[in-house]
């Protein structure tokens, strides 16, 4: 019923997509996958990113009785309030606190997912995901492959807040996405805004592969936009050109995109036309969209908060050089975090600021 209601609410421009290749008690035929060439034009209530995620979790629990939300402190709403109201509405058998043990959270989630459930696990900070590294890398990522697809834990989604907030220091600021991009078998997704967060999170939850969903915690309260109230999904592994331009391609994800966008404005004042791409899914990533853009502009800049060395920017750079070597008019630029632990008091120096990006845009265009 919920599904048919949401289907009726579905705008004409939204494409209905069959999504039944996963044997859960309910399929998600009622929700819409919005194709990348379309725009999510419906309006809704103004929500911040935290509330948008909360809304997605409500929908996930509502549309599938075999879905569960769990993690440290999620019962009372979570330390960032993303799970607020869920335990009250869906009961403590489906929304619950776990003991303080990340490897337990992910391992439990793998088992739950292997039994055809949607396991939506929260790791309180991405900085604390590492005790679960073994479960993610050696278990979740290889579950399907090692069993010849007899078993899978595709119902597992790990939500975790990442990134700088101005005062987080070593253990409340890190962006560890690159570690997980080195692991075939899992997907890594990072939303940039409330509307994106809701649609991408629902896709991750309903995707038939284990996914790590990194939430930009800097934007939890700060990013506010109109978010359609109904059940919708945004496609994974599809990048989006969020600003068109002709002189240089900028690629980023998550919270860093807002910094990059400001850099685009500044560059424009100096007559440089920047194309900005939100990668959204880091693996498996949409090389074609980036390649098409770089073939047009001839230049590429990648920016992320994680340390530059071995960051995911390196992979993008290598792939694009392979594909566009003769078209490139300048070396690929990377404006990223420095190769130090995330330093509390030096954060303003560490982070890839707007002006660092603007300088690199100019240097690349004038190469």
């Amino acid at each position, binding site marked *: 019923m919920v599904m048919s209601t949401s289907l009726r609410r579905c705008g004409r421009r939204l494409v209905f997509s069959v999504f039944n290749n996963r044997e859960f008690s309910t399929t998600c035929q009622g929700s819409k996958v919005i194709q990348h060439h379309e725009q999510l034009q419906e309006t809704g209530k103004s929500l911040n990113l935290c509330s948008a995620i909360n809304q997605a979790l409500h929908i996930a629990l509502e549309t599938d009785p075999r879905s569960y939300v769990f993690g440290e*402190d999620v019962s009372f709403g979570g330390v960032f309030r993303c799970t607020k109201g869920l335990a009250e509405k869906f009961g403590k058998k489906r929304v619950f606190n776990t003991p303080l043990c990340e490897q337990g959270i992910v391992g439990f989630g793998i088992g739950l997912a292997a039994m055809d459930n949607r396991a939506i696990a929260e790791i309180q900070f991405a900085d604390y995901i590492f005790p679960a590294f073994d479960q993610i890398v050696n278990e979740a990522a290889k579950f399907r492959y090692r069993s010849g697809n007899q078993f899978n834990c595709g119902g597992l989604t790990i939500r975790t807040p990442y990134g700088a907030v101005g005062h987080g220091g070593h253990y409340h600021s890190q962006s560890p996405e690159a570690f997980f991009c080195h692991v075939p078998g899992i997907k890594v997704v990072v939303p940039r805004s409330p509307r994106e967060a809701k649609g991408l999170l629902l896709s991750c939850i309903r995707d038939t592969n284990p996914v790590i969903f990194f939430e930009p915690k800097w934007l939890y309260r700060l990013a506010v936009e109109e978010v359609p109230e109904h059940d919708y999904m945004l496609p994974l592994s599809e990048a989006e050109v969020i600003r068109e331009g002709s002189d240089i391609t900028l690629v980023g994800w998550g919270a860093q995109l807002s910094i990059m966008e400001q850099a685009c404005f500044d560059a424009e004042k100096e007559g440089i036309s920047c194309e900005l791409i939100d990668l959204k899914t880091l693996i498996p990533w949409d090389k074609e969209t980036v390649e098409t853009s770089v073939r047009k502009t001839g230049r590429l800049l990648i920016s992320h908060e994680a340390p530059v060395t071995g960051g995911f920017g390196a992979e993008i750079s290598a792939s694009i050089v392979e594909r566009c070597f003769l078209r490139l008019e300048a070396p690929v630029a990377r404006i990223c975090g420095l190769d130090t632990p995330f330093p509390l008091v030096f954060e303003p120096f560490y982070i890839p600021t707007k002006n660092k990006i603007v300088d690199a845009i100019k240097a690349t265009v004038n190469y």
Partner: protein
Amino acid sequence: MAVCVRQSRNSIINHVKAKMGLLGLTCLSSSMPSLNNDHRTLSAASLAKDLRNQNSVLENKPILYRTRRFDSTKPHQRSGVQSNVANSQFLDFPGGKVAFTSEMRFISESPKERIPCYRVLDDDGQLIEGGINVGKEIAVKMYSDMATLQTMDTIFYDAQRQGRISFYLTTIGEEAINIASAAALTIDDFVVPQYREPGVLLWRGFTLEQFANQCFSNRGDDCRGRQMPIHYGSKKLNYLTVASTIASQLPHAVGVAYSLKMDGKDACAVTYFGDGGSSEGDFHAALNFAAVTEAPVLFICRNNGWAISTPTSDQFRSDGIVVRGEAYGVRSIRVDGNDTLALYSAVRTAREMAICEQRPILIEAMTYRVGHHSTSDDSTKYRPVDEIELWRSARDPITRFRKWIESNGWWSSEAESELRSNVRKQLLDAIQVAERTEKPPLVDMFTDVYDAVPSNLSEQEKWLRETIKIHPQDYPSDFPL
């Protein structure tokens, strides 16, 4: 049995060992291949009597500890059993021998009775029968440091609320665990803290100025402003630098303890954690490693009832933490964490056992996190205000201990107001100075990633300095460049 052959340089320990006739005897017997002979026994009272010389008297009834090592039985020792297999009363396996039984009996998930909580002072700060005696000097210092810690927490917490520091985390309600455990140790005992034990540093001589410098991330912070406030550390005071991660320090403490053991030091490692931390894999690894390596380490659990918003009922279904000890072969005790004297005597006794016998000891201190988890938390969202108030007032460990020292004539209202106003003034001064002190120099961002700065970081530093020259407005001005 390292304990039998270790040469202790510490006279107290030698004294304790001299009194441990039983220990020596059972060490000898432990080499005999029998199920019943592999016990070692140690009387806590014999240790306690020794502590009398250190102004500490425990009047516990003697407790005999059974220490078994379930050694494998070797084939040649089994010959007798083999000849009578049908009547064998024991299962003989690589882990030793266990008796057979024809009764199918599952071990209960809960004991008949919960493990009792050791206390010395009653709720009103009066000595319970038998009791304990601690000398004036140490008692007054314990009280003063608890009161100082409480005042420091109040002032730093307010400073955070005023936006002068970015973060703070109080120890309110857990001052006794902090200070009494510290008082029971020596400076050679190596502390591997979590993050709610700044009182141990205070006891060891970390100054209020040093606390303030760390919280304000200024040039005076030995850790160079790299970590959030309250992540203290001091090489000089044998206090490993705090990390925000949970329970990851516990295995470190075992490694530290093993080093102390191999170096023949009269010292142990001491590590702290909370009820939440006991759920992490590292906790289990640490206890098991400590038991197997026979490492002199004290695991002190602050069971304060709450891991941020998670109550202990969502954390575990065992009778708290203390019962985990037996499962790993680690001796353990549950103590009233708000009873300064009980903690002092328990930690002191545990320390002597850990060093003399070269073994880990687990202490579960029952307490309550009166403050919010941190300044990022509002605990009234998930726990009743009257519960917080009960522990803040009626069960405050400082008030309770004050009653006892006052009843001894060692403390007075005058002493109290003098202490509080002195500490307050000293702290406010320290904060003012710390706030005005410049930040660490930019170079500190790049040092200590490795022992020497590698070329990638040198390049990045050079590039950053050029960027700062071009865009000085992007960067805070109170950093020496």
